[in-house]
């Protein structure tokens, strides 16, 4: 299904860009003699429209549409417009694989792109590899860099959980406390947090004194909180799914007035309004953010432009509905990935599916990506061997019901040794 561009009423800037771009496009198309070379580049967009990831999917969709509008307004890729072919994967690995197959063999897409939930990435990636379809994921899983996938799967637009988690350890140990209790979902994503954070914290002289894994589909949490040891200095929490708000609220009710330091991954409250009833106790607690949800005092021009293009206000909510909170910490990955695809295709002089391996080599050759309109989240370094990008991480503190940036990690803090060299695999 070809997705019509999401119409939002207040995007005058984007409309202007579109009009300008149409002119630019017309001009650049004129340069090409062959009609074929002006055919659109088709990007298969695997989107979580239904299932557990739907809240993320909706914002991934909006960000993607905005990025495509911008890229097309600026003349497309090698003079050819981008066209998004969106298919729902139902946040299900089986359907995910079927959708990738559909992109390659039915729609004739040039690449596949998009998905967030790591089980969908795992389910889909083998098919992408077999079909030799470049598969750009925006998932923050450690799956790509761990070497478990294949040469056709890349994650150039968002950092992975291992680097995020280990970069938090120095700040947690130095500023918040050394005795940490971790609460995380009892599946692979939670286990990654458990393993990488425990190791990184020990390297900082701290210690994880309790690990509480919550089964998925759990809807009430108070009964688990007494497992938190009394001498805990810091609680480290990361939860996903529809029950996250209950989790955070019940934690507040459990501790009452005597809470330890609390550090959470914003995944626990992604797409949730911080002013929701029951969240008052989060005041003075800390969050990892992939990209600061609230516009900060030192906001870059790039963030400002990006925010406006996607239609997000200064509080991280939709311009048209302040109750509709975005998944700001993750969705920038769609924007940045599409810009990398553009850069890669232009470097490879991409003409069609025959140049897919050239595209992958071009992306593998990338290294530094300075902050820019293409990279509004900040500067990044891409590792072509592991197919994974590295970048700054942000730690924010809740002040007056808003997230205020307290610390920005260096990129060096997020680096770790290579676990794979995909460039040695054949195409």
């Amino acid at each position, binding site marked *: *299904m070809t997705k019509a561009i999401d119409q939002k009423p207040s995007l005058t800037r984007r409309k202007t860009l579109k009009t300008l771009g149409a002119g630019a496009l017309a001009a650049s198309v004129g340069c090409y003699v062959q009609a074929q070379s002006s055919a659109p580049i088709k990007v298969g967009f695997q989107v979580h429209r239904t299932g557990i990831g739907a809240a993320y999917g909706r914002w991934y969709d909006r960000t993607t549409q905005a990025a495509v509008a911008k890229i097309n307004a600026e003349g497309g890729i090698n003079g050819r417009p981008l066209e998004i072919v969106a298919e729902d994967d139902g946040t299900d690995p089986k359907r995910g*694989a079927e959708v990738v*197959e559909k992109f390659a063999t039915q729609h004739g897409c040039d690449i596949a792109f998009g998905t967030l939930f790591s089980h969908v990435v795992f389910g889909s990636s*083998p098919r992408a590899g077999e079909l030799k379809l470049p598969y750009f994921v925006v998932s923050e899983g450690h799956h790509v860099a761990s070497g478990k996938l294949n040469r056709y799967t890349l994650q150039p637009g968002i950092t992975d959980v291992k680097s995020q988690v280990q970069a938090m350890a120095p700040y947690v140990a130095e500023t918040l406390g050394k005795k940490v209790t971790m609460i995380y979902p009892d*599946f692979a994503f939670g286990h990654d947090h458990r393993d990488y954070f425990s190791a990184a914290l020990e390297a900082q002289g701290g210690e994880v004194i309790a690990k509480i894994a919550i089964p*998925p589909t759990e809807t009430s949490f108070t009964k688990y909180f007494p497992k938190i040891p009394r001498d805990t200095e810091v609680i480290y929490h990361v939860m996903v799914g529809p029950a996250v708000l209950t989790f955070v609220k019940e934690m507040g009710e459990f501790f009452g007035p005597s809470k330890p330091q609390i550090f959470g991954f914003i995944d626990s409250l992604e797409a949730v309004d911080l002013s929701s009833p029951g969240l008052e106790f989060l005041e003075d607690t800390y969050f990892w953010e992939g990209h600061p949800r609230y516009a900060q005092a030192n906001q870059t021009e790039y963030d400002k432009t990006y925010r406006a293009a996607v239609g997000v206000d200064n509080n991280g909510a939709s311009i048209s509905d302040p109750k509709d909170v975005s998944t700001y910490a993750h969705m920038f990955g769609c924007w940045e990935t599409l810009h990398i695809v553009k850069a890669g295709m232009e470097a490879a002089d991409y003409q069609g599916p025959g140049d897919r391996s050239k595209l992958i080599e071009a992306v593998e050759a990338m290294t530094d990506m300075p902050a820019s309109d293409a990279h509004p989240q900040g500067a990044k370094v891409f590792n072509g061997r592991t197919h994974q990008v590295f970048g700054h991480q942000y730690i924010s503190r809740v002040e007056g019901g808003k997230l205020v940036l307290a610390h920005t990690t260096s990129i060096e803090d997020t680096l770790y040794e290579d676990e794979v060299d995909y460039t040695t695999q054949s195409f």
Partner: protein
Amino acid sequence: MSSARSAHILHLGVLGLLFAAFFLLPAYHQGNLARILVLAVYAMGYNLLFGYTGLLSLGHAVFFAAGMYGLGLAMHLGGATPAPAFLAGMIAALLVAGVIGSLALRTVGVAFMIVTLMFAQAGYLTILYFGTYTRGDEGFVIPQTARALWGFDLTDPTNRYFAALILFAVVLLFIGWLVNTSFGRSLIAIRENEERARMLGYDVQRAKWIAVTLSGLLSGMSGAAYALLFGYAGATFASVQYSILPLLWVLLGGAGTTIGPLVGTIFMFYLIDFASEVTSAYMLVAGVAFVLLTLFAPTGIAGELRRRALPWLP
């Protein structure tokens, strides 16, 4: 022409059609059909218990997953090659089905539904609990290089299609044969009237246990084949919705018919696939289709064919 004979001709006809389909269909539908054939084996396994024996299980995902993880873990952790790994998957499914069957068959009717549901749920949680080995919900990939059976690269679309077709054909012919044996007839007798079957001297309990175990084994073979042909094993396949799916496929296609499971699996796959091209609200379309089918084709598609046009349909 006897009905057994026409059934035989029908099965061979279906297989011939599927063979020809590979050469006629475009790549996308070839790929889909390979998937459908593997999943239809799951549906046929389910149908053996539900359609022929009259036992409604809500926990078949645990058998599918047993096969999938039996093969997957043998290859992933044990470094086994596909043939012994497939055998490991079959053994895993056989054991799980044998044990669950012997416990669950102490119950009947809705209690049987709940007990199977609970065992499957426990199985799903166990996969998550041992996340160190199974990688829980995320699952693991079986690398392309390892997926070669006796020199045939199973990631090649042609090999994959025919591997799926061979598995499907073996199971279809087996079921077609089984339901005409005296054992098969005893299962149908149990479905129709368990008391009378007992009076007639059938060992009902034993027959039911064999049916559960066999059904679990076929489901496990489907799971193992799915992991082998599509390169992925994950806990999602052990979740409740994958226990409901074969029930739905069988009911839509026609319970207690040999080709119903295939028909139902094809129908549901393409219903979702086409509807999702037209609208993002494809679940709505599927929901309405289910309601309409129950209203106008109460015995499923193949069941309706048998009732209206082809009374000899097996």
